[in-house]
């Protein structure tokens, strides 16, 4: 019984939150990695693009709510996401046309493009803050919990409860659907294959008649879709605040690099690596061991490896370690 309690405890406080946080990071990391692989620069607007997409999702959610449209026990935001995606796609394509295409035609070095993306980061941040303001916003409606702690306790008769928020399930389901469609697209369709070919060897891809404009456009479209979905899921699960989204850029980059930048599948797993290590290293294991060990061996301290203040620092330290020993990432991305 104690053993089961310990397992449920870990599930509740470690596994479920890490899984949903990891999915949100993974979606971001995949598009950063794709942009790095195909457009060949570090896209510093990542976090702010996510907040841009989320902002429009929120605006459409409000609009639908004012019309009285809702999805019953599901959050209305799910209905608004496609509209948010449409606006974000338009925004990135306009941005590409106005800003990035010039530097591509000039064959500027990647550093230059990264600097330009800092310029667009400032602009995107300004747009988001001017339209919706810098405040914390919650836009979740519908059923909050799928499984409440005391329901679980009654069901199983255990001491420890297991809470599953509906947003966590939604995050996981949506992520699985989106990522499987994406990998099917990249691996099985002709356009996806041409994108991978372009990422592997630009000159060879151009020689074999791949249209670079189309590849670049599709990349931006995928980036906008993933950014909006990832951002909206994060906002549903926690809350929407432009500053947090900007900060999320850092673990997203860490995930992309840890997974091997330029390699979408690596980035996907990298998101979970970062999320799990952040939560595993900052969790206080005292209660867990209280269940497992006999009374005489019970620990005194919290048994916390690092204080929760260092949550962000953990992911960055992992990044530094990976950079030191395996610069191309855990799952071999581009050699840098």
């Amino acid at each position, binding site marked *: 019984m104690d053993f089961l309690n310990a397992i449920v405890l870990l599930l509740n406080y470690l596994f479920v939150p890490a899984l949903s946080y990891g999915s949100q990071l993974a979606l971001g990391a995949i598009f950063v990695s794709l942009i790095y692989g195909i457009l060949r620069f570090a896209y510093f607007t990542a976090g702010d693009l996510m907040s841009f997409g989320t902002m429009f999702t929120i605006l459409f959610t409000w609009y639908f709510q004012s019309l009285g449209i809702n999805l019953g026990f599901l959050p209305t935001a799910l209905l608004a996401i496609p509209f948010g995606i449409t606006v974000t796609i338009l925004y990135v394509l306009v941005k590409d046309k106005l*800003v990035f295409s010039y530097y591509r035609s000039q064959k500027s070095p990647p550093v230059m493009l990264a600097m330009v993306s800092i*310029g667009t980061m*400032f602009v*995107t941040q300004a747009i988001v803050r*001017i339209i919706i303001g810098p405040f914390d916003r919650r836009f979740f409606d519908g059923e909050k919990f799928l499984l409440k702690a005391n329901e679980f306790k009654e069901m199983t008769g255990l001491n420890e409860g297991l809470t599953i928020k509906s947003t966590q399930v939604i995050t996981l389901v949506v992520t699985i659907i989106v990522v499987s469609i994406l990998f099917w697209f990249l691996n099985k369709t002709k356009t996806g294959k041409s994108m991978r070919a372009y990422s592997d060897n630009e000159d060879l891809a151009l020689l074999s008649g791949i249209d670079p404009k189309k590849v670049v456009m599709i990349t931006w479209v995928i980036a906008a879709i993933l950014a909006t979905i990832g951002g909206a899921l994060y906002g549903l699960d926690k809350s929407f605040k432009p500053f947090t989204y900007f900060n999320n850029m850092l673990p997203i980059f*860490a995930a992309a690099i840890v997974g091997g*930048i330029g390699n979408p599948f690596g980035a996907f797993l990298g998101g979970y690596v970062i999320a799990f290590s952040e939560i595993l290293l900052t969790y206080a294991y005292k209660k867990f061991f209280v269940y497992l060990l006999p009374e005489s061996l019970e620990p005194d301290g919290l048994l916390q490896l690092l204080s929760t203040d260092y949550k962000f620092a953990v992911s960055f330290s992992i990044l530094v370690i990976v950079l030191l020993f395996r610069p191309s990432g855990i799952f071999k991305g581009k050699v840098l």
Partner: protein
Amino acid sequence: MRKNLDIISAYSIMLGLIILVGFLQSWSMALSILCLCLISAVMTMGANIQWGYAGLINFGIMGYTALGGLAAVLVSVPPVREAWQVGGFSMILCAFLIAFMVFSIRFIIKKYSQSKKRSYGIVAIIIVGLILLRLISAPAIESIESVSPATTGFLGGMGLPILFSWIIGAFFAGSLAYIIGKIALGLRADYLAIATLLISEIVISVIKHEDWLARGVKNVIGLKRPVPYEVDLQTKEWFINLVQKFNQGALNLITDTLERQELLKQLVIESSTVFVKLCFAGLFTVVVIILLIITQKALYSPWGRMMRAIRDNEEAANAMGKNVVKQHLLIFVLGSAIVGIAGAMMVTYDGLFTPGSYRPMRYTFLIWVMVIVGGSGNNFGAILGGFAVWFLWVEAAPIALFLINFFTSGLEETNAFRVHLVNSIPYFRFLMMGVGLLLIMRYRPKGILPEKIKHI
């Protein structure tokens, strides 16, 4: 004279703008803009040395700035004797333990060739060391932080004049840069940018959460100043006389003695803040000029030519027998040290250290906008960039207000759209920075004052 015309005209426009602020808003405002412009100029020079001379991207500027600020605290605050008594010994022991760990790992790496055994040995040393550190430091930290937590709760500093911290800050930042450089300098450019950005976040989170070091987010306030305090000035005889002399005309107009006294008192209070800021501005100008002379000399020395050669073609420079790795590390450390000076200067000017205020937007990306806008590789350009961008950053709100009022003048005062725009004025500065950066990168990619190379 003719060839420096662009520099002179750009700087006179900048100076004119600041003087204009003095006339339109207030002299105190103009001088505080000038002071922060000078500090930004130092930061930009540091970043420019790395980017303009050597082509290294350092997105960790925030981390070095914060370390400089930390130095200001550790130098100027008097030591907290009680805290040293309860926990000082353990903390010193920890420092020795860390040093011992580092040296033993270095020894093992040097002595034994690469093998599984060696890696396991190193890992074992690290794990045992970390557990020991935790065991020794945890009770010490707890007791240090419980020493009157409302005012101190940290070890305190050395109680020296705060000006020393400008050197110590450079030393701190330089040492951090040495470690980071050893780890990350082998990476490709944009990879280095991400790595340094993330490492600077680690530095900030350590400063924020290690309360025994500098009180963390509880902030350290009331740092000693290198210049006189306003309150002291207002009672000094010579200062009052000076103010009287300057405002003779205005004072003579008033015949009533009592009223004249009242006006004089007000003038003294106003001019005391101006005087203090003038003192700061003078100090900062000295630093900027010294750094400018040194960096100019370095740029046109054989060493500067070598750096440019490395920047423009690494392989060729390497083939000519220049040690690229070593020079990169050197310039990384030098540039970061200059940023460290700026960090210490900033905390000296503010008189307080607030780790929570270090954010990458303000301390890393804004500085990069300054470097790019000003002109990378040109020290005069870098300083100008620091001035122009900081000026715009501060004055963006009034400019935005003016523009909004101008363009929405057809709408009513209470129009929801207009009110919303006016409420979001602070965020227009981001828009201006972004658009400015994009325009400069597109139409003048070498900055306002581009790099000029003297050919001998």
